[in-house]
């Protein structure tokens, strides 16, 4: 039996009267690609922020990489990687400088940093561009670089918040190849997306509606359960009754 990297039990966050995340319980196993889906405003971001140690829950329990989401948030932050479409890298630093900066923050030794930089630049074929400012790179390159920087320190789990939004279809697929590679190195991937074809690439997906997890299973089982031919349809059936917007 593999260990659970993420474990929540009735995890809840209230803002005044408003229950943003309402008693969600689930586990994510090591090496799994877990798709965290939901309509706008369903409470995904709030849940993710709690799991990243950025927001203390109102009630319920949770651990990430074995650390408690109430008391060990600093340890959680050291054990995870994070990337989103919005915050990726420092645009006015070069590719190499970004790698060194983030690697340094995550406590990699100079020796490790050197080896990792070479490996990463080689993987993305950025040999000629390693001294270019990140701001001058095409979006697709930035997103791939930003992902590899997020897993530079071999975290137990990496959180990806809509990593492929607006990315061209070829780069989007290359991005998923990187995700598969990191899973082979037993990194766990927790990902949100609005592309329903990407939901198919996940081992399991959960779908949140109005603060609650309404469904959680493999894409295949979900399609069977809802009599749907695509994840798009499953999502539509579950989320069309949503009361909350963003």
């Amino acid at each position, binding site marked *: 039996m593999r260990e659970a990297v993420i474990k929540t039990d009735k995890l809840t966050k209230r803002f005044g009267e408003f229950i943003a995340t309402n008693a969600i319980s689930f586990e994510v196993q090591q090496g799994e690609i877990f798709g965290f889906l939901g309509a706008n405003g369903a409470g995904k971001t709030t849940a993710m922020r709690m799991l990243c140690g950025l927001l203390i829950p109102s009630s319920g329990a949770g651990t990430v990489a074995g650390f408690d989401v109430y008391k060990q948030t600093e340890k959680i932050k050291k054990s995870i990687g994070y990337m989103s479409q919005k915050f990726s890298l420092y645009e006015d630093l070069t590719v190499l400088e970004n790698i060194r900066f983030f690697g340094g923050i995550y406590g990699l030794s100079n020796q490790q940093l050197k080896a990792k930089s070479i490996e990463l630049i080689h993987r993305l074929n950025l040999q000629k561009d390693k001294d270019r400012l990140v701001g001058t790179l095409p979006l697709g390159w930035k997103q791939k670089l930003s992902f590899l920087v997020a897993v530079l320190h071999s975290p137990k789990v990496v959180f990806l918040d809509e990593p492929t939004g607006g990315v061209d279809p070829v780069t989007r697929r290359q991005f998923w190849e990187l995700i598969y590679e990191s899973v082979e190195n037993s990194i766990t991937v927790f990902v949100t997306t609005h592309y329903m074809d990407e939901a198919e690439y996940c081992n399991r997906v959960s779908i949140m509606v109005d603060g609650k997890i309404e469904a959680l299973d493999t894409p295949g089982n979900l399609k069977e359960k809802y009599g749907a031919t695509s994840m798009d349809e499953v*999502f539509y059936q579950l989320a069309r009754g*949503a009361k909350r917007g963003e």
Partner: protein
Amino acid sequence: MKAVTLNGLSKVYGKGKAIAVNKVSFEVSNGELFGLIGPDGAGKTSIFRMLTTLLLPDGGSASVIGLDVVKDHKKIRSRVGYMPGRFSLYPDLTVEENLTFFATIFNTRLAENYHLIKDIYIQLEPFKKRMAGKLSGGMKQKLALCCALIHKPAVLFLDEPTTGVDPVSRREFWEMLKQLKQQAITIVVSTPYMDEANLCDRIGLIQSGDLLTVDTPANIISAYPEQLYAVKADNMPALLKTLSAYDEVLSNNAFGEYAHVSFKDQAIEVNVVQSYLQQQGLSGIELRRTPATIEDCFIKRLSN
């Protein structure tokens, strides 16, 4: 007269270093729903901003309802509706105040063109005293659309109205566009979502400032040169790797639960492929012909 005409339109930023829009030409007919489809950085927003006279072109020309985007910019501004990608209404005005404000600016009244926005505004009416900044994402979008329509524009420009929007709200938004089309408003819309292409009358595929093609979605799809197959196996990552290494394969891309594959030999027999994949240790293999999607066509053009 065409609703919109672009003739070699170009935009260059950073002292000639970054070509955002590279000699783009196309036309949009009256009453047409035209989609500009491409990823971030393709040049969609620059094109929209030039057509709405908010940005000066660096080359070529363009006209909207017969008016030149440079010489006649003031006239164009009163005749088009523009919904930018970022929410750009006044967050500290109420729903009603925002609408009245935009109506007044365009010398009209809410009542005058109410029929245009009625179907959308009905959903907003319960919140008409609420500050626009406090609306949900979907509601903000509906209000922005109402404000862009309030003066009955000849052409409506919608820049990525569905980016970052969940699949349910995206579908609702396209339903609204379909209804607007009935009112004979020309609509130019941009999106990074390839699946939305099929909802347009005609589309332009765009990447890195270059217009790759302009046609109806059906024509673009039928011009796909090879027969595509949808292939599935129990272990998809292994299937994709095996296909990439397979000598007979021309292209191979993940498409949700299937991979879309084309072969060098158009007369290849399905049995041959099937038994090859089995020999490579794959199980649960499914293989059938499938029509191309717009995304297949986009990928094809990018790899050329």
